Protein backbone atom coordinates (compact mmCIF):
# COMPACT_ATOMS: atom_id res chain seq x y z
CA UNK A 1 0.00 0.00 0.00
CA UNK A 2 2.87 2.25 0.89
CA UNK A 3 4.23 1.44 -2.50
CA UNK A 4 1.51 2.94 -4.56
CA UNK A 5 0.74 6.11 -2.59
CA UNK A 6 4.14 7.72 -3.29
CA UNK A 7 4.19 7.19 -7.14
CA UNK A 8 3.46 10.87 -7.52
CA UNK A 9 6.37 11.91 -5.32
CA UNK A 10 8.63 9.49 -7.20
CA UNK A 11 7.43 11.09 -10.46
CA UNK A 12 8.27 14.52 -9.06
CA UNK A 13 11.75 13.39 -8.03
CA UNK A 14 12.46 12.03 -11.52
CA UNK A 15 11.03 15.18 -13.14
CA UNK A 16 13.23 17.37 -10.94
CA UNK A 17 16.24 15.77 -12.61
CA UNK A 18 15.02 15.07 -16.17
CA UNK A 19 13.41 18.43 -16.95
CA UNK A 20 16.48 20.65 -16.20
CA UNK A 21 18.67 18.28 -18.25
CA UNK A 22 16.23 18.57 -21.15
CA UNK A 23 16.26 22.37 -20.78
CA UNK A 24 20.08 22.39 -20.91
CA UNK A 25 19.96 20.29 -24.08
CA UNK A 26 17.56 22.66 -25.81
CA UNK A 27 19.61 25.65 -24.71
CA UNK A 28 22.78 24.20 -26.20
CA UNK A 29 21.20 23.68 -29.62
CA UNK A 30 20.72 27.46 -29.82
CA UNK A 31 24.44 27.85 -30.41
CA UNK A 32 24.83 24.69 -32.53
CA UNK A 33 22.11 25.50 -35.05
CA UNK A 34 22.58 29.29 -35.19
CA UNK A 35 24.12 30.75 -38.40
CA UNK A 36 27.66 31.93 -37.99
CA UNK A 37 27.50 35.67 -37.33
CA UNK A 38 29.95 37.69 -39.51
CA UNK A 39 30.57 40.92 -37.60
CA UNK A 40 31.81 42.80 -40.71
CA UNK A 41 28.46 42.35 -42.51
CA UNK A 42 26.43 43.26 -39.59
CA UNK A 43 25.48 46.76 -40.81
CA UNK A 44 25.14 47.34 -44.63
CA UNK A 45 27.17 50.47 -45.46
CA UNK A 46 26.11 52.75 -48.42
CA UNK A 47 28.82 52.66 -51.16
CA UNK A 48 28.94 56.46 -51.48
CA UNK A 49 32.13 58.41 -51.56
CA UNK A 50 31.48 60.44 -48.49
CA UNK A 51 34.42 62.79 -49.01
CA UNK A 52 33.25 63.65 -52.50
CA UNK A 53 29.74 64.34 -51.23
CA UNK A 54 31.08 66.56 -48.49
CA UNK A 55 33.52 68.44 -50.75
CA UNK A 56 31.18 69.11 -53.66
CA UNK A 57 28.11 71.23 -53.19
CA UNK A 58 25.29 69.46 -55.04
CA UNK A 59 21.52 69.47 -55.06
CA UNK A 60 19.12 66.61 -55.53
CA UNK A 61 15.97 67.23 -57.59
CA UNK A 62 16.67 70.94 -58.09
CA UNK A 63 14.15 73.11 -59.91
CA UNK A 64 14.76 76.23 -62.00
CA UNK A 65 11.89 78.40 -63.21
CA UNK A 66 11.99 81.50 -65.33
CA UNK A 67 10.07 83.64 -67.81
CA UNK A 68 11.63 84.31 -71.20
CA UNK A 69 11.67 87.65 -73.02
CA UNK A 70 8.77 86.60 -75.23
CA UNK A 71 6.64 85.55 -72.31
CA UNK A 72 7.17 81.81 -72.28
CA UNK A 73 7.51 80.11 -68.89
CA UNK A 74 10.43 77.69 -68.58
CA UNK A 75 10.63 75.14 -65.76
CA UNK A 76 13.73 72.95 -65.60
CA UNK A 77 13.97 70.08 -63.13
CA UNK A 78 16.67 67.41 -62.82
CA UNK A 79 17.58 64.45 -60.64
CA UNK A 80 20.90 65.90 -59.52
CA UNK A 81 22.75 69.14 -60.13
CA UNK A 82 26.40 69.75 -59.34
CA UNK A 83 28.15 73.08 -59.97
CA UNK A 84 31.44 72.71 -61.83
CA UNK A 85 34.09 73.67 -59.32
CA UNK A 86 36.81 74.15 -61.95
CA UNK A 87 35.12 77.01 -63.75
CA UNK A 88 33.94 78.93 -60.70
CA UNK A 89 30.53 77.21 -60.80
CA UNK A 90 29.47 79.04 -63.97
CA UNK A 91 28.48 75.59 -65.25
CA UNK A 92 26.00 73.32 -63.55
CA UNK A 93 26.08 69.62 -64.53
CA UNK A 94 22.70 67.94 -64.25
CA UNK A 95 21.45 64.40 -64.77
CA UNK A 96 18.03 63.35 -66.03
CA UNK A 97 16.97 66.87 -66.90
CA UNK A 98 13.30 67.64 -67.71
CA UNK A 99 12.39 71.03 -69.16
CA UNK A 100 8.86 72.25 -69.75
CA UNK A 101 8.33 75.39 -71.81
CA UNK A 102 4.82 76.84 -71.67
CA UNK A 103 4.53 78.97 -74.79
CA UNK A 104 2.39 82.05 -74.76
CA UNK A 105 -0.79 80.67 -76.33
CA UNK A 106 -1.04 77.61 -74.16
CA UNK A 107 1.13 75.28 -76.20
CA UNK A 108 3.74 73.31 -74.40
CA UNK A 109 7.13 71.87 -75.27
CA UNK A 110 8.69 69.16 -73.07
CA UNK A 111 12.36 68.24 -73.32
CA UNK A 112 13.97 65.19 -71.70
CA UNK A 113 17.72 64.78 -71.62
CA UNK A 114 19.95 62.33 -69.73
CA UNK A 115 22.78 64.87 -69.39
CA UNK A 116 22.51 68.66 -69.28
CA UNK A 117 25.06 71.39 -68.67
CA UNK A 118 23.46 74.71 -67.67
CA UNK A 119 25.65 77.74 -68.33
CA UNK A 120 24.41 80.51 -66.05
CA UNK A 121 26.51 83.20 -67.75
CA UNK A 122 25.35 82.53 -71.31
CA UNK A 123 22.00 81.33 -69.96
CA UNK A 124 22.10 78.31 -72.26
CA UNK A 125 21.57 74.63 -71.55
CA UNK A 126 23.62 72.15 -73.55
CA UNK A 127 21.73 68.85 -73.58
CA UNK A 128 23.39 65.63 -74.69
CA UNK A 129 23.00 61.89 -74.48
CA UNK A 130 19.95 61.47 -76.70
CA UNK A 131 17.46 64.27 -76.21
CA UNK A 132 13.70 63.92 -76.78
CA UNK A 133 11.53 66.97 -77.45
CA UNK A 134 7.72 66.67 -77.48
CA UNK A 135 5.30 69.40 -78.34
CA UNK A 136 1.56 69.77 -77.98
CA UNK A 137 1.11 69.36 -81.74
CA UNK A 138 1.99 65.73 -81.28
CA UNK A 139 5.51 65.93 -82.63
CA UNK A 140 8.24 63.90 -80.97
CA UNK A 141 11.70 65.03 -82.05
CA UNK A 142 14.81 63.00 -81.20
CA UNK A 143 18.39 64.14 -81.55
CA UNK A 144 21.74 63.40 -79.98
CA UNK A 145 22.39 66.94 -78.76
CA UNK A 146 20.28 70.06 -78.29
CA UNK A 147 21.05 73.60 -77.11
CA UNK A 148 18.22 75.30 -75.26
CA UNK A 149 18.35 78.98 -74.42
CA UNK A 150 16.95 79.95 -71.03
CA UNK A 151 16.26 83.60 -71.94
CA UNK A 152 14.05 82.99 -74.95
CA UNK A 153 12.24 79.82 -75.91
CA UNK A 154 14.79 78.69 -78.51
CA UNK A 155 15.88 75.09 -78.88
CA UNK A 156 18.35 74.11 -81.58
CA UNK A 157 20.08 70.89 -82.54
CA UNK A 158 23.40 70.58 -84.34
CA UNK A 159 23.13 66.84 -84.80
CA UNK A 160 20.78 65.00 -87.21
CA UNK A 161 17.20 64.80 -86.12
CA UNK A 162 14.47 62.21 -86.47
CA UNK A 163 10.88 63.04 -85.65
CA UNK A 164 7.38 61.69 -85.95
CA UNK A 165 4.05 63.46 -85.73
CA UNK A 166 0.94 64.36 -87.73
CA UNK A 167 3.07 64.61 -90.87
CA UNK A 168 4.39 61.08 -90.55
CA UNK A 169 7.98 60.25 -89.77
CA UNK A 170 10.66 62.70 -90.68
CA UNK A 171 14.43 63.06 -90.75
CA UNK A 172 16.50 66.21 -91.15
CA UNK A 173 20.00 67.52 -90.63
CA UNK A 174 19.01 70.22 -88.15
CA UNK A 175 16.03 71.41 -86.11
CA UNK A 176 15.32 74.78 -84.56
CA UNK A 177 12.36 75.80 -82.43
CA UNK A 178 12.17 79.56 -82.13
CA UNK A 179 9.91 82.61 -81.91
CA UNK A 180 9.83 84.06 -85.43
CA UNK A 181 7.36 86.49 -86.98
CA UNK A 182 5.19 86.49 -83.85
CA UNK A 183 4.88 82.69 -84.08
CA UNK A 184 6.69 79.75 -82.56
CA UNK A 185 8.07 77.83 -85.53
CA UNK A 186 9.60 74.37 -85.48
CA UNK A 187 11.99 74.51 -88.43
CA UNK A 188 13.73 71.48 -89.90
CA UNK A 189 16.62 72.04 -92.32
CA UNK A 190 19.30 70.29 -94.41
CA UNK A 191 17.63 67.69 -96.63
CA UNK A 192 14.39 67.19 -94.86
CA UNK A 193 12.70 63.90 -95.70
CA UNK A 194 9.13 63.09 -94.68
CA UNK A 195 7.32 59.79 -95.22
CA UNK A 196 3.55 60.09 -94.83
CA UNK A 197 1.37 57.00 -94.90
CA UNK A 198 -2.11 57.78 -96.27
CA UNK A 199 -3.46 54.74 -94.50
CA UNK A 200 -2.50 56.48 -91.23
Amino acid at each position, binding site marked *: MALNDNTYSRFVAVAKVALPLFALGVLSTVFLVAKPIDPSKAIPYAEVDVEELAREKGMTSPEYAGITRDGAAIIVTADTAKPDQARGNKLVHTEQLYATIDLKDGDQVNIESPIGVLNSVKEKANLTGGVILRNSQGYTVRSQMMDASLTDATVETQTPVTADGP*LGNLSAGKMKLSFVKEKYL*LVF*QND*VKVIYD*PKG
Partner: protein
Amino acid sequence: QGTSVLFGSSEHDASLPVEVVADLLEVDQTTGDATFTGNVVVGQGEMRLSAEKVIVEYKTEEEQQASDSSGKINRLIASENVLLVNGPEAAEADFAEYTIDSAEVIMIGNVIVTQGENATSGNRMVVDLNTGRAQMSGRVKTILQPDN
Protein backbone atom coordinates in the same frame (compact mmCIF):
# COMPACT_ATOMS: atom_id res chain seq x y z
CA GLN B 1 -16.20 71.55 -122.24
CA GLY B 2 -12.55 70.56 -122.12
CA THR B 3 -9.95 68.41 -123.78
CA SER B 4 -9.15 65.11 -122.19
CA VAL B 5 -5.54 64.12 -122.32
CA LEU B 6 -3.83 60.90 -121.42
CA PHE B 7 -1.63 61.49 -118.46
CA GLY B 8 0.53 58.78 -117.04
CA SER B 9 -0.29 55.31 -118.22
CA SER B 10 0.85 53.22 -115.24
CA GLU B 11 -1.61 52.34 -112.49
CA HIS B 12 -1.31 54.74 -109.58
CA ASP B 13 -1.89 53.46 -106.04
CA ALA B 14 -3.22 56.20 -103.78
CA SER B 15 -2.49 54.20 -100.65
CA LEU B 16 1.27 54.11 -101.24
CA PRO B 17 3.30 56.16 -98.75
CA VAL B 18 3.91 59.71 -99.87
CA GLU B 19 7.51 60.86 -99.59
CA VAL B 20 8.32 64.55 -99.42
CA VAL B 21 11.90 65.78 -99.74
CA ALA B 22 12.77 69.45 -99.25
CA ASP B 23 15.47 71.83 -98.08
CA LEU B 24 13.38 73.25 -95.27
CA LEU B 25 10.20 72.41 -93.37
CA GLU B 26 8.45 74.91 -91.12
CA VAL B 27 5.83 73.72 -88.65
CA ASP B 28 3.75 76.33 -86.85
CA GLN B 29 3.64 75.35 -83.21
CA THR B 30 0.15 76.67 -82.55
CA THR B 31 -1.81 75.87 -85.67
CA GLY B 32 0.29 72.92 -86.82
CA ASP B 33 0.51 74.23 -90.41
CA ALA B 34 3.48 72.71 -92.21
CA THR B 35 5.22 74.34 -95.17
CA PHE B 36 8.00 72.81 -97.23
CA THR B 37 10.27 75.22 -99.10
CA GLY B 38 13.25 74.81 -101.41
CA ASN B 39 13.45 72.08 -104.12
CA VAL B 40 10.44 70.26 -102.79
CA VAL B 41 9.72 66.88 -104.43
CA VAL B 42 6.56 64.99 -103.52
CA GLY B 43 6.79 61.39 -104.62
CA GLN B 44 4.23 58.59 -104.58
CA GLY B 45 4.76 55.50 -106.66
CA GLU B 46 5.59 56.68 -110.19
CA MET B 47 4.30 60.21 -109.65
CA ARG B 48 6.68 63.09 -108.88
CA LEU B 49 5.39 66.56 -108.09
CA SER B 50 8.16 69.10 -107.66
CA ALA B 51 7.87 72.78 -106.72
CA GLU B 52 9.61 75.49 -104.76
CA LYS B 53 6.96 75.59 -102.05
CA VAL B 54 4.42 73.03 -100.79
CA ILE B 55 1.87 73.78 -98.08
CA VAL B 56 0.32 70.86 -96.21
CA GLU B 57 -3.41 71.15 -95.58
CA TYR B 58 -4.78 68.83 -92.92
CA LYS B 59 -8.24 67.33 -92.90
CA THR B 60 -10.83 69.12 -90.79
CA GLU B 61 -12.62 67.15 -88.07
CA GLU B 62 -15.58 66.25 -90.27
CA GLU B 63 -13.36 65.28 -93.19
CA GLN B 64 -11.34 63.16 -90.81
CA GLN B 65 -14.41 61.15 -89.78
CA ALA B 66 -15.85 61.08 -93.27
CA SER B 67 -12.71 59.69 -94.94
CA ASP B 68 -12.10 55.96 -94.58
CA SER B 69 -8.30 56.24 -94.42
CA SER B 70 -7.03 57.55 -91.12
CA GLY B 71 -4.35 59.70 -92.79
CA LYS B 72 -4.38 63.27 -91.51
CA ILE B 73 -3.37 65.15 -94.66
CA ASN B 74 -6.09 66.35 -97.00
CA ARG B 75 -4.18 68.22 -99.70
CA LEU B 76 -0.70 69.37 -100.69
CA ILE B 77 -0.73 72.80 -102.31
CA ALA B 78 2.34 73.36 -104.49
CA SER B 79 3.36 76.73 -105.93
CA GLU B 80 6.32 78.38 -107.76
CA ASN B 81 7.36 76.49 -110.90
CA VAL B 82 5.39 73.34 -110.34
CA LEU B 83 6.22 70.27 -112.40
CA LEU B 84 4.16 67.07 -112.33
CA VAL B 85 5.74 63.98 -113.88
CA ASN B 86 3.83 60.73 -114.08
CA GLY B 87 5.35 58.08 -116.30
CA PRO B 88 6.25 59.50 -119.75
CA GLU B 89 4.11 62.68 -119.44
CA ALA B 90 5.13 65.93 -117.76
CA ALA B 91 2.98 68.94 -116.90
CA GLU B 92 4.07 72.39 -115.77
CA ALA B 93 1.88 75.00 -114.09
CA ASP B 94 1.89 77.89 -111.64
CA PHE B 95 -0.07 76.05 -108.95
CA ALA B 96 -1.04 72.47 -108.19
CA GLU B 97 -3.32 70.97 -105.57
CA TYR B 98 -2.76 67.28 -104.88
CA THR B 99 -5.55 65.57 -102.92
CA ILE B 100 -3.93 62.40 -101.67
CA ASP B 101 -6.90 60.20 -100.83
CA SER B 102 -8.69 60.80 -104.12
CA ALA B 103 -5.38 60.80 -106.07
CA GLU B 104 -6.39 63.94 -107.95
CA VAL B 105 -4.05 66.73 -109.01
CA ILE B 106 -5.56 70.06 -110.05
CA MET B 107 -3.07 72.23 -111.95
CA ILE B 108 -3.89 75.90 -112.34
CA GLY B 109 -2.29 78.76 -114.32
CA ASN B 110 -0.68 78.35 -117.81
CA VAL B 111 -0.57 74.58 -117.71
CA ILE B 112 1.69 72.97 -120.34
CA VAL B 113 1.57 69.23 -120.94
CA THR B 114 4.37 67.76 -123.01
CA GLN B 115 4.05 64.25 -124.43
CA GLY B 116 7.07 63.48 -126.48
CA GLU B 117 6.82 65.92 -129.42
CA ASN B 118 3.29 67.15 -128.73
CA ALA B 119 2.46 69.95 -126.33
CA THR B 120 -0.93 71.05 -125.01
CA SER B 121 -1.47 74.15 -122.97
CA GLY B 122 -4.44 75.60 -121.10
CA ASN B 123 -5.47 77.43 -117.94
CA ARG B 124 -6.54 74.52 -115.83
CA MET B 125 -6.05 70.78 -115.79
CA VAL B 126 -7.53 68.13 -113.53
CA VAL B 127 -5.53 64.88 -113.48
CA ASP B 128 -7.01 61.68 -112.08
CA LEU B 129 -3.90 59.65 -111.28
CA ASN B 130 -5.82 56.41 -110.77
CA THR B 131 -7.16 56.28 -114.31
CA GLY B 132 -4.38 58.29 -115.90
CA ARG B 133 -6.92 60.62 -117.55
CA ALA B 134 -6.59 64.42 -117.44
CA GLN B 135 -9.21 67.05 -118.26
CA MET B 136 -7.78 70.28 -119.63
CA SER B 137 -9.88 73.44 -119.82
CA GLY B 138 -9.54 77.17 -120.39
CA ARG B 139 -8.06 78.33 -123.77
CA VAL B 140 -6.68 74.91 -124.63
CA LYS B 141 -4.07 74.95 -127.42
CA THR B 142 -2.47 71.87 -128.84
CA ILE B 143 0.68 71.85 -130.94
CA LEU B 144 1.12 68.63 -132.88
CA GLN B 145 4.50 68.06 -134.54
CA PRO B 146 3.86 66.37 -137.85
CA ASP B 147 6.61 63.82 -138.01
CA ASN B 148 8.13 64.82 -141.34
